[in-house]
């Protein structure tokens, strides 16, 4: 079952006050996400990945095109209850987790806020939070009661993933969610997304520049280049038989463990 449909989505940024300049950030892209599907959106910085995610999350208004979630046009949701419904179902994790926190509040707050969306669940909130933190490999006593600046980038990213684990949304948009987590434990955090998918049917749109990560976790990879989706396929298809020149270059540039770059 398709849960998200993106059609002819375009975003043009207009910069400058007097001499206006247009930047085509996302150029007429269309794709669908099915239930339980793990999709990776791969591309270099500036390719439009984050802009796409922000439009789906209703943080940035598209210039044209439509985004439908479970059949409803995301940008026509106006009433508070509809918006709450959307936020409950679709959750974003951002590249720079520091920006997701209010520096004046302890990190407990971002976790507690999840319960405002879920509503009263009757269970012991504190123990649910502790369990979620353990799931992402954190020691609850080391992070609860702390302020955002006291935590490392990796810890802040893990907390955002823990928040997802509490919320159990239908669709997760994760924008470089493990970029600050060590390679040695990255796989463990990514496994959590896969578990949410297997246990609760959550779909994931995973945004990354790391083709290696995408190769292992996704059902489907979409390669984005200069605002367009230039290639799409299963991880094997994209890695073993890339069609677009950009995909080929990307594959050549990824450092491998058992092969050296040519010329090095």
């Amino acid at each position, binding site marked *: 079952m398709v849960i998200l449909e993106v059609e002819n989505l375009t975003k043009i940024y207009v910069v400058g006050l007097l001499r206006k300049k247009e930047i085509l950030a996302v150029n007429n892209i269309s794709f669908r996400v099915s239930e339980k599907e793990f999709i990776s959106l791969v591309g270099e910085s500036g390719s439009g990945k984050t802009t796409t995610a922000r439009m789906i999350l209703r943080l940035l208004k598209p210039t044209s095109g439509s985004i439908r979630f479970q059949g409803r046009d995301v940008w026509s949701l106006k009433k508070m209850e509809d918006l709450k419904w959307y936020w409950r179902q679709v959750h974003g994790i951002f590249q720079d987790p520091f920006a997701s926190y209010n520096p004046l509040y302890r990190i407990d707050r971002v976790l507690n806020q999840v319960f405002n969306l879920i509503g009263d669940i009757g269970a012991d909130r504190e123990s649910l939070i502790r369990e979620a933190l353990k799931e992402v490999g954190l020691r609850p006593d080391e992070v609860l009661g702390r302020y955002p600046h006291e935590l490392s980038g990796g810890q802040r990213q893990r907390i955002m993933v823990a928040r997802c684990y509490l919320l159990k949304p239908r669709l997760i948009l994760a924008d470089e969610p493990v970029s600050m987590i060590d390679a040695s*434990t990255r796989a463990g955090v990514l496994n959590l997304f896969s578990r949410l998918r297997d246990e609760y049917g959550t779909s994931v749109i995973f945004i990354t520049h790391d083709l290696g990560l995408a190769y292992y976790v996704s059902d489907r990879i979409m390669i984005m280049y200069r605002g367009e989706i230039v290639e799409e396929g299963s991880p094997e298809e994209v890695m073993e038989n890339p069609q677009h020149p950009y995909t080929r270059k990307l594959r050549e540039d990824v450092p491998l463990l058992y092969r050296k770059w040519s010329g090095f």
Partner: protein
Amino acid sequence: MTLLEAEHVKAYYSIRNSYVKAVDDVSLSVDRGAILGLAGESGCGKSTLVNTLMMNIRPPLRLIDGTIVLDGIKISEMSRSKLKKDVWGILVSIVPQSALNALMPTKKIVDFVKDIFHYHTDMSRAEIVSMVRKRFEELNLSPEILHLYPHELSGGMKQRVVIAISTLLNPKLLIVDEPTSALDVSTQKQVIKLLVDLHRAKIIESMVFVTHDLAILRQIADKIAIMYAGKIVEVASTDDILYTPLHPYTRGLVNAVMTPESEVRKRGITFIAGEPPNLLNPPSGCRFHPRCPYAKPICKEVEPPIIEVRDDRIVACHLVESFM
């Protein structure tokens, strides 16, 4: 022939009445002409170690014990002012982790460079500029960059400019600390290409490359040292580390690498459970024992000695024989 020899180095951060043992009894050498990779998780003391290797130590970090000899000079006994004058930039340079922000935002690159030279040499400003232009050309960097402000450069370009500036005085040893972790793959490759070019052109003699990314080290390092919780746990050639890792931690790191290749896919990916320990109060015995799948009672009680299993290959693990 060794360029840098560090023996039994202990560098601790003193906090109130206790110590964070970030570098605890580390011995390490860098051969002339070699590229040494230093790998480990964040918080294991990699950055502290490389700063200690060049004696870039400031309170609360203190050198508690050990000797460091660089190019025949015992730098562990030199004063900070003497290091500044005779060692840093000339014998050893570091490109720190936050190098992308090292450029002064209100100064053009060229002004920044002039200041550095002014400090170290008595060349005239015009001579400095022509020399730097020449070096930039050698490294395939456009000399026009010199007349730009830092914000006009992309992340990868800034990193390359910082590396080019750090090596202007042809230091024998260049230390780079996570130079590519904030960059996307194609830019990463350009930065590494620049480092390889510097090495091939003999502008630098040896290099220490700090990263947690073993796939990057595969591309350039001759030898890899693995660090865990303030200790070096294994040192071996790049091939030995990747194909026949001996320490369980090294094996854990190698098996967690997610590179898109068939060998890795066949082998499968596992991750190291748990988190690195707090260095204020590290575990007894082998510091890896709480996370080690092979731990035996002895691992909890006795610190493993450093065992030289072969020429040029050392491991600190009680159970090493059972892995060979």
